[in-house]
């Protein structure tokens, strides 16, 4: 019987390490809601994995794959939700940010990308410095604390263009944090300038770069990358750039593009490689699983994917398993509502996510691939979404310091 407590006493069910015979002392006992779910599914195939995860054990590749193959969204979700509660509590953070996708002209031409254009092709654009500044000026009254600057691999722009871009923005807006240039772009800057990755990062830091966004990770599997992004930095190279940045004192995020032609094994390997990299340099502040949007991409044109992208269940499962696999190493699991949709992003707050990205003014990359979300969420909407999910909203900086907690119902601006 469901939650019926007569026969099985789960009220005093403390999660214990298999074979150890003693209660865990590192963790508080499981919350009542988790206990009822563990009890309801006590005979499920993944219950042992779930118990180990909750006891704080690091899961291995086989465990991760078994979680992905399971259909038990409640058990996976409840585990992720519990680990989230224990590591970051009930606050859900967001940042007021603006995206600047400064160019779409790209030599990389990834098969999953609907955003890039070749030079001279209709729709190709590169923003001038004054266009970039105008965008920032136009939204300066929205309280933006972060600029998220991501472009492409432009064939002609010299490295100095990027350096100057950061420098000029910082000279006018010294207080705005610039999270700019994915590891793939940084590696590309190194290639075109003849500078080492380290020198590129040092010069960008000097110009005012604050941190590095998590894009360009896609899926680390090198064989798969040969099919979906052969001209881009390798998986190994991506991690090397990030670790170099971490060593130079920059924080970064990490992403995973899922739901195209990768396998569950690829996803788990991706998470584990990230976890291993984090053990070494510790600079990843947030992990952001990104559901693939197939419209207008070569993968769809070539018939390698269908037109739908990952389903809602898959998105929630992937967010939850990310939380579980990265537990203890990366505390912030972010729902990027632009790609998941607002409703699913809100739901994912119960499946391990603790951050709703941001106001995201003017995002172009997902929308080129048929993303039908809005282009901007006002703070009041984000606050409402978080509250409606039963959690406490808080505005954060790019580096996850809390700026303001919205703990009273009327304080929504």
């Amino acid at each position: 019987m469901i939650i019926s407590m007569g026969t099985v006493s789960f009220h005093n069910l403390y999660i214990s390490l298999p074979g150890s015979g003693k209660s865990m002392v590192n963790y508080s006992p499981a919350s009542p809601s988790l206990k009822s779910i563990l009890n309801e599914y006590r005979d499920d195939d993944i219950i042992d994995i779930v118990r180990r995860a909750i006891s704080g054990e690091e899961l291995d590749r086989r465990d991760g794959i078994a979680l992905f193959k399971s259909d038990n969204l409640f058990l996976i979700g409840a585990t992720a939700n519990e680990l989230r509660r224990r590591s970051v509590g009930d606050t859900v953070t967001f940042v007021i940010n603006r995206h600047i996708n400064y160019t779409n002209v790209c030599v990389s031409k990834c098969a999953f990308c609907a955003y890039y254009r070749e030079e001279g092709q209709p729709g190709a654009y590169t923003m001038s410095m004054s266009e970039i500044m105008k965008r920032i000026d136009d939204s300066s009254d929205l309280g933006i604390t972060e600029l998220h600057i991501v472009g492409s691999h432009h064939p002609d722009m010299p490295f100095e263009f990027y350096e100057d871009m950061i420098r000029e923005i910082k000279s006018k807006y010294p207080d705005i944090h610039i999270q700019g240039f994915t590891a793939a772009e940084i590696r590309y800057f190194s290639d075109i300038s003849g500078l080492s990755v380290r020198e590129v990062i040092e010069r960008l830091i000097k110009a005012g770069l604050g941190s590095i966004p998590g894009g360009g990770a896609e899926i680390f599997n090198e064989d798969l990358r040969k099919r979906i992004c052969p001209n881009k930095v390798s998986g190994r190279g991506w991690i090397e750039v990030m670790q170099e940045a971490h060593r130079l004192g920059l924080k970064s995020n990490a992403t995973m593009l899922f739901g195209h032609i990768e396998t569950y094994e690829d996803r788990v390997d991706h998470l584990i490689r990230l976890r291993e990299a984090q053990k070494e340099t510790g600079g990843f502040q947030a992990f952001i699983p990104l559901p693939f949007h197939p419209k207008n991409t070569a993968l769809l044109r070539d018939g390698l994917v269908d037109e739908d992208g990952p389903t809602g269940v898959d998105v929630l499962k992937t967010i939850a398993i990310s939380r579980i696999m990265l537990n203890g190493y990366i505390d912030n699991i972010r729902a990027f509502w632009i790609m998941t949709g607002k409703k699913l992003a809100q739901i994912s707050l119960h499946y391990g996510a603790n951050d709703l990205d941001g106001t995201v003014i003017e995002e172009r990359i997902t929308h080129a691939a048929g993303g039908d979300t809005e282009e901007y969420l006002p703070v009041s909407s984000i606050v409402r979404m978080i509250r409606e999910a039963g959690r406490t909203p808080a505005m954060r900086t790019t580096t996850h310091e809390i700026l303001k907690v919205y703990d009273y119902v009327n304080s929504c601006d």
Partner: protein
Amino acid sequence: MTSIRSDIDQVVEKAVLKEPLTVEDGKALFETSNLLTLGMAADRLRKDACGDTVTFVIDRNINYTNICTSGCKFCAFYRKRNAADAYVLSVDEILEKIKEAVELGATQILLQGGLNPDLHLEYYEEILRKAREKFPGVQRHFFSPSEIHFMADVSGNSVKEVLARLKDAGLSSIPGGGAEILDDRVRKEVSPNKIGWRAWKDVMVTAHRMGIPTTATMVYGLLETIEERVRHIMRIREIQDETHGFTAFIPWSFQAGNTRLAEEFAERDMDPGGVDYLKMVAVSRILLDGAINNIQVSWVTQGVNVAQVALSYGANDFGGTMIEENVVKAAGAKIQYLPPEKIVRIIKAAGRPAARRDTLYRVIEEY
């Protein structure tokens, strides 16, 4: 050992033991922040009540007119008689649309329209007769209670007489639209010219007693309180306990685009979120357990992804393919026809078996 219970365990336990739930119980379910516990409970009740199979129907929504005297504030579809884009479909145009739907395998036509005083009972009867004659295999799921009530007003017949004539002309079942929130405080705010909740109930009870099955719906997010949501579901349950005529319950959220209600509350974000929707589905399952077996998701309003997730929150039906839909679309929802193979794929990706059904939820084909 003292019991540590999550806030909703007691309510859920009562539900499982088939004890009647109170309005307070219903409110506690809505107010929980333990979304997954709520979902798990609803999921278990769903499994016990109707198994794992998720059903859907191949259907088309046809709207015979958008001219409507009701002028509900939440509606973006209606037009005044003299509006440039006001329309009335001829019987032949409707038959042509049915024909297109039949070619795509439709077994159900949902026909609804505005409250248009220029149309007479004979028009509705003619649609039914000709549809039955030309497409006998297609179920005629026509006319919501407010339309039937309006037909009675315009024609000077009783609701019962109108229903008898429509049934005689070929009416198979009645869609549950126009329920919105079954509470007259809310209705006076958002749809003052539409029938009150008792009149809605009277049409449904009369239809059920005449052997005409119906669905029941709920549109939430119309400035109602949580208690009013619970009462709505309870009222549906009371009717069902009396007549057993409801085949399914279908909740969805108010779609604000292009509506007067959204204009009046311009500074407010009117769109209830995904968590609210999952709660709505789960609470519907729990409060209607033992009374209405089929809880339908609304992919049209929530998007396919959230609808798929709702299959784990107590829903067992994916609704229809929606070869055509106009009303929600007018409020800004982005809707595209979902072919059966896509629906099957979505259901299976949720780990559930899929089956095509007819309007009465009888399985036609398993996948």
